[in-house]
């Protein structure tokens, strides 16, 4: 395969743990390390380990994984910011990266000046920037403010301009960390369209990190999932997202981030929708009823209530309790939550799960993102008139 854009061979990156507290980068620390006769046990961890991956040119590669799974480290290595500890990554062509919005922008300079500066930092010549200057400005929608100092920009304008510069660069490979989440919906849509266009028209390759799974599903031609620095799934976005969901919900896994005093008491739960694992239910027709089962796997010697909460785009829509009065939480007990799907607008929803104990004890646990589901659009106008958003939990 000659037209590989990216070839990654047994790539690994090791970091020193707790380097912030221990190794303060001082000369004294270095000296003490130098004269220590037997080096102490090194506390290191692998942010990436034995990564093997080929990305053909012209693909949009989506990358999913929990926080700390190594996504950003991989992007940093690919963009050349930090070298790998083992292995290597070969990139064919010029690379531009947008790992954070507006790095390289200077507040005291105008939008125009920042376009040239940022372009140069990303490796473009003045003539190249001149050639697409108008396009950059048009796309960013900054318009008449182009000669205003960017410190007076709204954060939206800032993001738009930064993305616009990176997207218009004539580079072969574009690396984008989760930066688009900052813009408004309209701009996100245009950005995704732009990325599509860029790949289709010029055969560029994009590596794209996002927690917004529908976007990955919609935009990417291929995807990978990272977990603890290792590649655990790759292939079609659909498959990767499915596997990613599964990995979040593995029984006994600690992958769901529990919060609260009771967090350790509820190490696991199973969530299924209509008797199936979440990943097998890509979409629920609005005519169906959603049944969500949650099971406590550890015994909690307290009386309490369990609840699920449904989120849409980060906004909590509603919460359903499983019982009216506090009663003992027993291992193995299953709480069933039912929602008629037609009461939800078509779209993607995220689930959270939690519990509280009696108020005088005031203890709780809660975890977001325990699962997600999609309601499809077989949805009638009638629903609007008949239902006023009431949800009956039973």
């Amino acid at each position, binding site marked *: 395969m000659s037209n590989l854009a990216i070839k990654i061979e047994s790539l690994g990156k090791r*970091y020193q743990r707790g380097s912030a507290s221990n190794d303060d980068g001082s000369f004294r620390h270095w000296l003490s390390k130098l004269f220590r006769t037997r080096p102490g046990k090194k506390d290191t961890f692998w942010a990436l380990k034995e990564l093997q991956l080929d990305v053909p040119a012209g693909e949009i590669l989506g990358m999913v994984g929990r926080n700390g799974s190594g996504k950003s480290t991989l992007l940093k290595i690919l963009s050349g910011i*930090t*070298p790998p500890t083992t292995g290597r990554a070969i990139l064919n062509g010029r690379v531009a990266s947008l*790992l954070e919005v507006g790095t390289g922008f200077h507040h005291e300079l105008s939008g125009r*000046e920042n376009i040239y500066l940022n372009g140069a930092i990303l490796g473009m010549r003045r003539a190249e920037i001149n050639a697409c200057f108008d396009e950059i400005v048009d796309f960013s929608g900054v318009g008449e403010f182009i000669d205003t100092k960017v410190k007076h920009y709204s954060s939206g304008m800032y993001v738009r301009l930064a993305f616009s510069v990176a997207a218009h660069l004539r580079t072969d490979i574009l690396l984008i960390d989760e930066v688009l989440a900052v813009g408004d919906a309209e701009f996100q849509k245009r950005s995704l369209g732009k990325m599509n266009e860029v790949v289709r028209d010029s055969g560029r390759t994009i590596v794209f990190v996002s927690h917004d799974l529908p976007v990955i599903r919609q935009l990417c031609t291929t995807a990978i999932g990272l977990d603890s620095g290792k590649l655990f799934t790759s292939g079609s976005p659909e498959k990767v997202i499915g596997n990613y969901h599964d990995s979040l919900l593995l029984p006994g896994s600690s992958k769901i981030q529990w919060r609260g005093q009771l967090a350790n008491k509820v190490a696991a739960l199973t969530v299924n929708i209509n008797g199936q694992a979440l990943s097998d239910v890509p979409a629920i027709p609005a005519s169906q009823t959603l049944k969500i089962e949650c099971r406590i796997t550890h015994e909690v010697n307290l009386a309490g209530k369990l609840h699920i909460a449904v989120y849409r785009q980060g906004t909590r829509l509603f919460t359903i309790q499983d019982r009216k009065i506090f009663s003992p939480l027993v291992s193995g007990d299953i709480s069933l939550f039912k929602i008629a799907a037609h009461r939800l607008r078509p779209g993607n929803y995220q689930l959270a799960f939690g519990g509280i104990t009696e108020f005088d004890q005031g203890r709780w646990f809660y975890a977001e993102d325990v699962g997600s589901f999609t309601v499809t659009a077989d949805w009638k106008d009638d629903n609007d008139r008949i239902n006023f958003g009431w949800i009956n939990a039973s």
Partner: protein
Amino acid sequence: MDHRELVGLLAWRDFRVRYAQTFVGVTWAFFNPLVNLLILSFVFNRVAGVGTQGTPPLLYAAAGILGWTFFAEAASRAGESLMGNQNMVRKIYFPRLALPASAVVASLPDLVVSLLLVLLMLLIQTWWAPSQLYGLIFLFPLLILTAFTAGTWISALTIRFRDFRFVVPVLLRLGLFAVPIAYPLSQIPAQWQGIYCLNPLVGLIEGFKWSLLGLPAPSPVVWLGLPVLITLFITGLYLFHRVERYAADHL
């Protein structure tokens, strides 16, 4: 890939930002060296009564301090450049050497303005145009190279050892007295001159005084600084290259 544009734009950014807000900012740039000049001239020429090779003391010190001020400013800015731009270093790949290089370039306008000021002093004081001004053609590139070399060393060491940044101002303050700004090289005992001249700045400062004041050529022993400079330049680049790879991890 040609990185001159990047260096130019970064330098222009630094320069714009430094003087964007204030006219006073421009004045400040010359206030510090002016105070240094007065102190040095007072201490060495007035109090200690050191001779100035037949030129007016203030003018003598001004010719001497010109190169030193640029060196101190450019080297310390270059030394801070990676720390100061750590957001960029952590999030974008670009040749890191562009940062110290641009910091040196951004200090050039100050050098040009102070040169004009010194020439103005010359005109007012003596009414003669120095005939050895052509020497500046060699002296400026060497001065810039010296500042850049120091910048690579300082920035590389600062990344590796954070506390180094506290050492730099002390060294620079010492340097103000350790290079022959307000006193001639001949003040140094003959047997120590060889060691003294290992400092590339000694030859440079002597050279500036020779060129600007029309003094007799300094003793050839000042050339000792040149091989030292070249060695430091090469090792500095090597060190910088070693450190820059991991700069994003260390910052």
